[in-house]
């Protein structure tokens, strides 16, 4: 299996917190491929390791062992500054509690990743307004988060995750703070706007109502992937612990990840 089309390649990734008697094995040998153009969900009970895996994939936590390649780069090999730059340029985040900055308007919140990248304020905010308009939120661009409903806040958070055209979107329980209908609407929007042939989306969720939006579902328990469902969105479910064949022919120092062409 080559790197073509693979956004995230994980082999035998482990994560251990603490030392000695207080050790906690949060991840126990994770094997997982996440492809461009697909929406992958990590599901499982609390404490199963979903959020830890998401943190490791995004470079917010270091893996203890194993091989992890994200968008052709090995987070473990990147210096702190490089890792920050890598996240800023390539990753988009959607958080459970939205984590919008209360003092900023919706458009300004959307502009934050651009501002972090050095874009001028006026230009960044204008881009934020434009992006909100594409999500049908133009009329709320100047509202503060406190003036927005939960669904609207999550749409602003989604816009913030997408505005800088990242290659990997990670969402942590994006619908858990929303009612069923709003959650569904947010997922509709996320599927329509975030999933592109040159981008991968990872969602951590408990919410079984949104499983049908997934191309791939990784069921986790006790730090392991217990089963992998493929192509659920298309109705052709392939259940079971999917074999992840072969090792990536990793060409060090950096791997080239080629986004799928959409075919």
């Amino acid at each position: 299996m080559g790197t073509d089309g693979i956004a995230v390649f994980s082999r035998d990734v482990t994560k251990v917190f603490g030392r000695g008697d207080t050790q906690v094995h949060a991840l126990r040998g994770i094997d997982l491929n996440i492809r461009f153009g697909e929406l992958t969900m990590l599901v499982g009970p609390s404490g199963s390791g979903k959020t830890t895996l998401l943190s490791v994939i995004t470079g917010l936590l270091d893996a203890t062992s194993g091989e992890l390649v994200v968008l052709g780069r090995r987070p473990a090999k990147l210096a702190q500054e490089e890792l920050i730059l890598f996240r800023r340029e390539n990753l988009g985040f959607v958080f459970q509690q939205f984590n919008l900055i209360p003092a900023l308007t919706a458009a300004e919140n959307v502009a934050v990743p651009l501002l972090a990248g050095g874009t001028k304020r006026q230009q960044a905010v204008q881009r934020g307004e434009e992006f909100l308009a594409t999500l049908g939120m133009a009329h709320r661009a100047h509202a503060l988060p406190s003036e927005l409903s939960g669904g609207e806040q999550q749409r602003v958070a989604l816009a913030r995750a997408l505005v800088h055209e990242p290659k990997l979107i990670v969402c942590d329980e994006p619908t858990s703070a929303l009612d069923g209908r709003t959650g569904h609407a947010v997922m509709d929007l996320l599927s329509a706007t975030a999933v592109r042939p040159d981008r991968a989306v990872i969602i951590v969720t408990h919410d079984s109502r949104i499983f049908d939006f997934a191309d791939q579902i990784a069921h986790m328990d006790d730090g392991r992937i217990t089963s992998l469902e493929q192509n659920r969105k298309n109705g052709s479910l392939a259940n079971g612990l999917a074999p992840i064949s072969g090792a990536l022919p990793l060409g060090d120092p950096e791997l080239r990840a080629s986004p799928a062409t959409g075919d």
Partner: protein
Amino acid sequence: MNFVALKMLVADRAKYFSLIFAIAFASFLLANQISIFIGIMTRPSSQIRDVVDADIWVMDPQTLYSDEVYALRDYDLYRVRSVPGVQWAVPLYKGTGRAKGPDGRFRTVILMGVDDATLVGAPRKMLMGSIYDLDQPDAAIIDKAGFLYFFPGDPLQVGKTLQMNERRVLIVGISDASAPFQSFPVLHTRYSQALGFVGRERNLLSFVLAKPAAGVPPAKVCRAIEATTGLRARSAAEFSLDAFLFYLRNTGIPVNFGITVMIALIVGTVIPGQTFYIFTVENLKQFGALKAIGVTNRRIVGMILLQALVVGGSGYALGMGISAAFFARTLNYMPTRGIIFPWQVMASIGVVVLLVVGLASLISIRRVLVLEPAVVFRG
């Protein structure tokens, strides 16, 4: 990201204003207490500073400061004049006496007897009359505060009389003499006249005022006078410092003001520091999200420092504005006259505020720097 930092700062107006007012209050308290302390502690040297003609004060070797004097013998004047490096030397009487007003009210007054021939030591800041009017019999110049005490409600005018030692004192001028420590009225008269206004002692020569020859440093001449005469000689600056240190060591004033200054420092450090820290902690989630998104630690430190600087700068400016207004208002009030707001105090408080907000932001920054960005995934 600067505008993000500023918007985060002002979003919670209650906290924002409480931060500014805490720093403004502490700045005002510090400015107020330190300036008044300096003003009061320089009052004992008022009469020294008001003598602008002479650079050297010669006195009894055991003199501690200007308000307690043991008279010299008359011939000491000539001994000083004979010292090489002394351009000229004149006598000065400084003592206290009791003056009585026309309505019977009396007060202890500071009596300055200046050299009859040269009027060296006479007040230079005159509000009414002239120092040359001291030539008149029984003439004296009184300071404004003294005039207002003895003649309450009367407009400033010359020609009024007081009584000292059963003798008439004719007011020929009103001076703007620096306020003395004891707040006594200050009277200037001729040396020969002063002898009549106070009870006669065998010796009345309080000080010899001297001027060094051109180009000779006063300190060098002082040492020469001391070596030649055995008297104590101090430059005006040294003698002013003597008075300052005497009151510093022998009164409770520094303790009193020190306590207030300490309270101001504690209030000024703890309240803004704690509020700023709480403000940062409440925003930890936002900072965590920013770190996850890819904002560098350096950028976040910059944001926090900017917030601290804005808060500190605003509070400091407000505090200094209130202080300036306070001292402008009290400058012409008789009991507080002459107490000013020195720029050095203003600058020092600026440094203190900078340290306070710096300290507060350092503690806050530490919390943010050790924050794992992964915290944003913990709902």
